């Protein structure tokens, strides 16, 4: 078998990498993993809210991906195929564990901008806490929609493809989340632009 140079692998397109993975080349697996690990882990973490669970989900996803890559025919993009796998792994894990952990950890550090006043910080904390409470209470499908939308910036069509539903369904789920958040945060009206 031809030996692959890792430096050359970095130059390859996804399709070339996928072909190399089909041939069972470990270096290609590793490269594919490196390209997509942050996407997969981010979705898993934002969905599950727990680093250990997120690693389990990411691990499952890559194991399934490497086992099934021979069946990838390229009818859809590799990204869509991968997103479908992550979504399914997240839902499988949810079915097994039957609970959600808080979605966001260490969020306050992110929000603590330099130069922010004490009042700004208090408002941000309150706002973040309420957003987090709403998001943590969402049903799995709505939760996944907002994770794919705001963690990965996917379009409605891309989210629909990953979740096996229409773009219209995605739009209505997102709209529902926005309405719930808006309703819960009305008392902070007028201060939102400070957040």
């Amino acid at each position, binding site marked *: 078998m031809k030996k692959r140079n890792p430096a050359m692998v970095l130059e390859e397109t996804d399709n070339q990498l996928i072909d190399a993975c089909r041939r069972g080349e470990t270096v290609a697996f*590793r490269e594919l*993993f490196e390209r997509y*690990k*942050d*996407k*997969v*882990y*981010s979705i898993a*973490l*934002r969905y599950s809210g727990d*680093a250990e669970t997120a*690693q389990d989900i*990411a*691990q*499952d996803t*890559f*194991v399934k991906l*490497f*086992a099934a890559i021979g069946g990838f025919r390229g009818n859809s993009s590799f990204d869509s195929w991968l997103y479908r796998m992550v979504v399914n792994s997240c839902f499988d894990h949810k079915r097994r564990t039957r609970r959600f952990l808080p*979605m*966001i950890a260490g*969020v306050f550090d*992110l*929000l603590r901008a330099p130069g922010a006043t004490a009042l700004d910080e208090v408002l941000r904390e309150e*706002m*973040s806490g309420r*957003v*987090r409470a709403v*998001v943590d209470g969402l049903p799995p499908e709505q939760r996944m929609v*907002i*994770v794919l*939308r*705001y*963690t*990965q910036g996917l379009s409605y069509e891309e989210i629909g493809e990953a979740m096996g539903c229409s773009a219209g369904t995605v739009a209505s789920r997102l*709209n529902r989340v*926005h*309405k719930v*958040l*808006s309703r819960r*945060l009305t008392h902070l009206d007028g201060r*939102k*632009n400070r*957040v």
Partner: protein
Amino acid sequence: MSDPNENDWIEKELARQLTPVRAPDSLWSRVESARRRGARSSSLAGTQAGWILWPAVAMMLLFASGDLLWEIGKARASIAPLTEQDLEAVADGSACDFKSSDPAQIERWVKAETSMNVNLSCGRPGNAQLVGARLIRKRGAVIAAIAYQVGNDAATLLVSDKHSLFRWNRDYSIAWSGSKESGSKEANPGACNQCHLDARSQL
């Protein structure tokens, strides 16, 4: 629809809270070891595990099908294997386990012996005369045979709780029991023949 300005700050807040993160460096080693474990366990699944699982599945299927056959057998037993002798014996009033011409008494006796509700007191009186009742047991199924006379002819009403195999059979009418349809002429006219009509005219 939501206010677009309101959505704007909500979207910003969600995007801020759901920022992507870097995967931990340990993830690759976890994936690799899981792949190796998976390769081992899938090869086991095809060999040793298969030998353990398949007999268990086969046993479960065997039990399930046996139970199904037993239920079918019980249901069929309610009518099909009744011999001519069984029926003649019932039609002969002397073979009754319980002799009475009172519908209410026979109803109570059948209820006490089989828990089945039989309605013999329905509607206008016909020319049928009750003789008595007897129980026939066939492979776990219980049939209440109610003997009566229509003129000079003997007839029998057979009642079982297995209504799925009920059918008309020569001089013998079969009725539902234990359900709303019990004794209903629409559901099964034979159920009412013992007190309403000449049984033979219906057969």
